């Protein structure tokens, strides 16, 4: 994998954060393959179990996004900070691990707080054209999310 390919993959990860931060779900989904799958998981030391907190295919993500205006949600914007740690080519894909920090900024007064930390474990499709997200596993370290959030990380 050359530097340009690696840079394009890193840019994909960063663009996915920018799109979600902006609430631009159409752009986010345009960065994903038709068979995209998105999962949030974490491990509970309390019950000693792996837990899945969200799991959707592309259609499920579309529905989640289009349904947002019908719900009462916290409107504080999120800032997703990703740092690409590793990119490992795997045939027509690349496995990408990125550090993730999510900050939430209150609308009233603009106070910013750290909301969650974890990692993106992404599978990026490289088969022609621009790289696209085929699989995103958000592996959370943070398990206390207060009143939660309606939009995925």
């Amino acid at each position, binding site marked *: 994998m050359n530097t340009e390919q690696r840079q394009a993959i890193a840019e994909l990860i960063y663009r996915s954060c920018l799109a979600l931060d902006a609430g631009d779900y159409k752009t986010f989904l345009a960065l994903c393959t038709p068979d995209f799958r998105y999962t949030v998981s974490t491990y509970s030391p309390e019950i*000693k179990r792996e837990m899945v*907190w969200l799991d959707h295919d592309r259609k499920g993500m579309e529905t989640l996004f289009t349904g947002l205006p019908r719900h009462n*949600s916290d409107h504080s914007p999120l800032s997703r900070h990703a740092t690409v740690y590793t990119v490992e080519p795997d045939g027509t894909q690349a496995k990408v691990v990125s550090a993730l920090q999510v900050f939430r900024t209150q609308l009233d007064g603009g106070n910013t707080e750290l909301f969650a930390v974890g990692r993106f474990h992404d599978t990026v499709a490289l088969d022609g054209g621009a790289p696209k997200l085929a699989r995103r596993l958000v592996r959370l370290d943070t398990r*206390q999310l207060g009143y*939660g959030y309606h939009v*995925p990380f």
Partner: protein
Amino acid sequence: MSKTEAQWNAAPKFPASHYVDSRLYTDPQIFAEEKEKLFKPAWIIACHESELPAAYDYRLFTHPAGVPLIIIRGEDEKVRAFYNICPHRGNTLLYDPSGNAKRVTCIFHQWSFDARGNCVQITREQEGYQQRFCKDDVGLREVKCEVAYGGFVWVNVLDDCVPLRDFIGGALDILEPFMQQPMEVFHFHKAHIHTNFKLWHDTNSEFYHDYMHYFNRITGMLQPGYFERKYTPFPNGHASVGSMQIQYDKYEGSKERAVGWPGLARGGWYMVDLFPGMTYNLRTSVIRIDTSIPLGPNDVLIEFRGLGLKTDSAEERAQRIFDHNMIWGPFGRNLHEDLLGVTGQGRALRQGTGSRWILHGREENNTIHDEVGMRHYYAEWSRRMGRPAYDPYREGKAEPVRAAA
């Protein structure tokens, strides 16, 4: 018509049983009394037996009254509960929230205890204490502990407490047919919310706020049977909510639930609210349990558990987890709305905001939008606190003044 200060502060035009003083949610003195008078005498869900599958497995739990507890399964399979406090120098005995400890050993001076609370080692015992003091003179402080009502581990920190059965008083009978098979916890998370614990229980005790939930409006409120769901009050402040058939397929992205619950009608949904701050919530394919741990007048830590059946296949379990997450996970449609709602109450009811009364005045023959669940709760609150909830600072406040609605 808008109100002047005097009009805003005037008592509502309801019977005294149909509103409460908003200072119930902010007064530190009342909060301290609640821990003593409501939580200490209550049986509280500490965890589920599936969290302690093997001998010596333990879970830590901070009791709502403030006591740190170790819940541990002995080699005899019995589950017991002890203070997580070393009797030597008061150190915390176990630090990790779960684990397996054949010996509970304090890291400070290596005193050890077994799963029955016996002291089994005092380091350099003879040298330090000679014949004056020995292992038999110390032990862990044990508290009442029972596994019941679906395999949940209940604790009570008072030695002279009422039996668990008397405390429940038949409130969970409605769920007994659905809790005959072993269950298993698959979801656990805590939410620290800036609100009073009673406001969370209120939210679980009334369905009028379904107007906040698009999911519940479309799958429930607009469907047949919704307005026939009834509240049933039980002794000790508990209440249950009857079932209906939820139409899950009415919500885009949802569908009729593929996995049900043994004995429960298709789309069924029962709830039982237990005084002073726990809820059983059987919603078609999943049981959710809420346990509130009050941290301050405007702070509560809520433990959320999701359970399926121990016999679940991988596919069944995955479906239950999906169903759970759609509405009740940290990213779910309903839980976020509920928690946002009570956070807003916490914000508006803080001391100094000018809030004055909370209305519980809806009467609809005990059906789903009737506020009888809250009236029943605050009748018990008044009785136990010796303060009328509508006037908690009244002279001679010890008089129990309100009957259940």
